[in-house]
């Protein structure tokens, strides 16, 4: 397989692409090549730069540097439409077609067969039917597109793109909302198109599917190219290591010795807790004075678990218990009432209120918990703000400064302070160290340990495996929206976590994988 494709010049060649948003460097000197007739998976964790790369190639974002060649000729599309005309088509997870129009109109919009200024409806339907038949789809093309399943809509979008003489087809998470049978149909079509010489870029976080369909894999991390490999010769563990950027040999850092954790009191427990189509049912015990880490790849169900635990999402099965008693946990309000706190991943959009001051942000949750009729006096507010600014070492130590002007690490501390002020029993932290510089990073980790020693129960999500290993007493590993493994005590190290993530569905052994 490796050699048969080699002689042909690459269909799409991307050299040294860079892109910055303000001070953030989203892509740095990234190379990517796509051959005619291959299915090429583009992989990477959240923030790796996959979407940015696609958008730069298709002209949605202007690029800062680098060149793109299509069939040997340099192209620089300035819009998605121009890219389409050049022969690069993109089909996004959210299908970009018009659900209110008929399937036929969607396929031929703006290029319908005409006679005397009138659309030849019958001819258009005949052609649409013939086109879709080539994709193994036999449907009523006069019906509105929105009346069909997402899979049919995807195939329609692909059919339109291919019919517009696309040579490069970019599929961004095409399988995320499809069931297994629909995925099979889509894969059949992808193979057929590749057979016709179309180059396909496949973005997905379902590794099983990547191994099933792709010829080669390119991995990005933090806006840089990690490597390009033949799928057949790349072990799964190696791939995950490329994505997460961890060497298996790397030693674990010094861990607070656990061991007596079995003796600790259970704070909250979840039995067979889950939601259809969201996270498979799981059992989870959170104890006072214990940190539970959630590890897994992007899309494995970490954040989903956190949202269920807090009540931000309503479970449709299972039982939640707090201090041994069954409780109702259906809304974030319930979560707050039970003494839960949640610092979400998207700090800027879901967490801080950038225009309010540090003091106002800190007292927000406490005030909400007390209700509108028991306002905190200004003196109490000042007192609380001062206490947490001191305790968490928030800088600058000015309670009246708008939070938006603080650094990422200090914003994170303000969020922490907000929940700590409500004296919670359980705190859920989703990626508490994302986008924070190294110094603040260590400090947040120290804080997590300290809070835990004070008897708080913590559930922490992180993509940084080192970090999880450092502070967790137990690590729950997730894959494909299900809890697949739980590591405790000595078993917690980076290589075991990686092995559990990579395990191919079969049994998971904890010992000596390397």
């Amino acid at each position, binding site marked *: 397989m490796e050699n048969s494709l080699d002689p042909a010049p690459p269909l799409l060649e991307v050299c040294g692409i860079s892109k910055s948003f303000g001070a953030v460097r989203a892509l740095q000197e990234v190379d990517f090549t796509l051959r005619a007739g291959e299915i090429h998976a583009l992989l990477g964790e959240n923030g790796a730069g996959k979407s940015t790369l696609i958008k730069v190639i298709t002209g949605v974002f202007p690029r800062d540097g680098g060149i793109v060649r299509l069939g040997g000729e340099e192209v620089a599309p300035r819009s998605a439409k121009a890219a389409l005309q050049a022969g690069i088509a993109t089909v996004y997870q959210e299908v970009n077609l*018009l659900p*209110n*129009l008929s399937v036929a*109109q969607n396929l031929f*919009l703006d290029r319908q067969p005409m006679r005397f200024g*009138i*659309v030849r409806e019958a001819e258009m339907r005949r052609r649409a039917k013939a086109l879709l038949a080539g994709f193994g789809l036999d449907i009523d093309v*006069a019906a509105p597109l929105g009346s069909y399943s997402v899979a049919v809509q995807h195939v329609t979008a692909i059919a339109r793109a291919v019919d517009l003489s696309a040579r490069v087809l970019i599929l961004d998470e095409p399988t995320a909302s499809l069931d297994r049978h629909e995925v099979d149909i889509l894969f059949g079509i992808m193979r057929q198109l590749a057979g016709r010489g179309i180059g396909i870029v496949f973005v997905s976080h379902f590794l099983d599917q990547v191994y099933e369909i792709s010829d080669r894999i390119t991995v990005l991390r933090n806006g840089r190219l990690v490597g390009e490999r033949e799928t057949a010769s790349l072990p799964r563990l190696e791939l995950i290591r490329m994505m997460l950027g961890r060497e298996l040999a790397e030693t674990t850092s010094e861990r607070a010795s656990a061991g007596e954790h079995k003796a600790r009191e259970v704070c909250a427990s979840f039995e067979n807790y889950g939601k259809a189509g969201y996270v498979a049912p799981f059992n989870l015990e959170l104890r006072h004075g214990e940190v539970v880490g959630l590890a897994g790849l992007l899309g494995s169900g970490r954040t989903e678990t956190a949202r269920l635990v807090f009540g931000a999402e309503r479970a449709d099965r299972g039982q939640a218990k707090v201090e041994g008693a069954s409780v109702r946990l259906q809304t974030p309000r319930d979560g707050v009432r039970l003494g839960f706190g949640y610092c979400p991943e998207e700090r800027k959009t879901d967490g801080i209120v950038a225009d309010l001051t540090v003091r106002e942000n800190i007292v927000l949750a406490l005030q909400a918990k007390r209700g509108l009729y028991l306002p905190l006096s200004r003196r109490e507010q000042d007192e609380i703000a001062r206490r947490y600014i001191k305790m968490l070492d928030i800088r600058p130590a000015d309670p009246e400064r708008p939070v938006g002007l603080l650094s990422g690490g200090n914003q994170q501390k303000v969020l922490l302070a907000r929940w700590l002020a409500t004296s919670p029993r359980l705190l859920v932290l989703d990626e508490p160290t994302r986008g924070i510089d190294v110094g603040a990073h260590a400090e947040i980790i120290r804080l997590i340990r300290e809070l835990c020693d004070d008897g708080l129960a913590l559930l922490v999500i992180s993509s940084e495996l080192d970090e999880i290993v450092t502070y967790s007493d137990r690590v729950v590993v997730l894959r494909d929206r*299900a809890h697949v493994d739980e590591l405790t005590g000595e078993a917690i190290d980076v290589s075991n976590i990686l092995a559990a993530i990579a395990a191919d569905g079969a049994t998971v052994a904890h010992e000596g994988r390397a």
Partner: protein
Amino acid sequence: MRGLPPVLITAIVLVAGFALCAVQFPNIASTRVVGNLLTDNAFLGIVAIGMTFVIISGGIDLSVGSVIGFTTVFVALAIERWGVPPLVAFVAVLALSAAFGAAMGAVIHVFDLPPFIVTLAGMFLARGASFLLSTESVPITAPIYSTVSDFALRLPGGGRLTAIAIIMLVIVLGGALLLHLTRFGANVYALGGSRSTASLMGVAVGKMTVKIYMLSSLLAGIAGIVFSFYTSAGYSLSAVGVELDTIAAVVIGGTLLTGGQGSVIGTFLGVLIQGLIQTYINFDGTLSSWWTKIATGVLLFAFIALQQGLVALARRPVARSAGAAS
């Protein structure tokens, strides 16, 4: 196909309403009454066709009533005071209103403003301009007016299909053709589905927006001329609030107020339903004519509730089992 179920419901309401009226007042079921109904609602039907295009494309045009008012005043003054030949006056006022609509469309697209605000401004502008021209009713005595008024096709049973009713029917047919059979029509639906997606799929969104509002204002201009034939006068206060009757007719006709779905024939039926209610009240003789508004309001509410129900039904999420660890 698309939009058919709501149109069917509108048709059933119209037929049932007509049957009910005919039971109470057998005279209603005559070509004479039907002919008058078409004549009385000719201007409303014409302007509602334009509004159908605008609403299906996801917009709204609040200026049409004012454009009708302006047109009647302009035509009356041009013919009676300025001595312009009537046909020249018609062409001039249609060019003016088309340009006015194109300008609104351009502003909506270029500055990315909500059509509601832009056409609201257009509504005040056009109404203000007509007051500027004249604040009093100007009677039109030109011979063409009596000729047109006298012209009518005799229907069996003593009814008359007047010239303005014929104009309306021709425009309904032309509108249906344009909306349902041309590329322009398909693009109107595409815009109503999603402007950004339509743009990605190659539709020239800016040009389409300009053309759609131009069409609406042009039809409002024609409706204004028809209105001046109907009343033989130009008055700056004529057709106040007609934009709302028009929107009501379009929505009762099964067009989705959020855009993307609807039909010309539905709008036509919607106009007839409003005319029927008015006719019933005239026959009854004891009811206040404001009952028309009340009945229209009730119907409008019923139709919007119905549409929301249909939309909610279409959006019902499909339950999917959780992906278990394979």
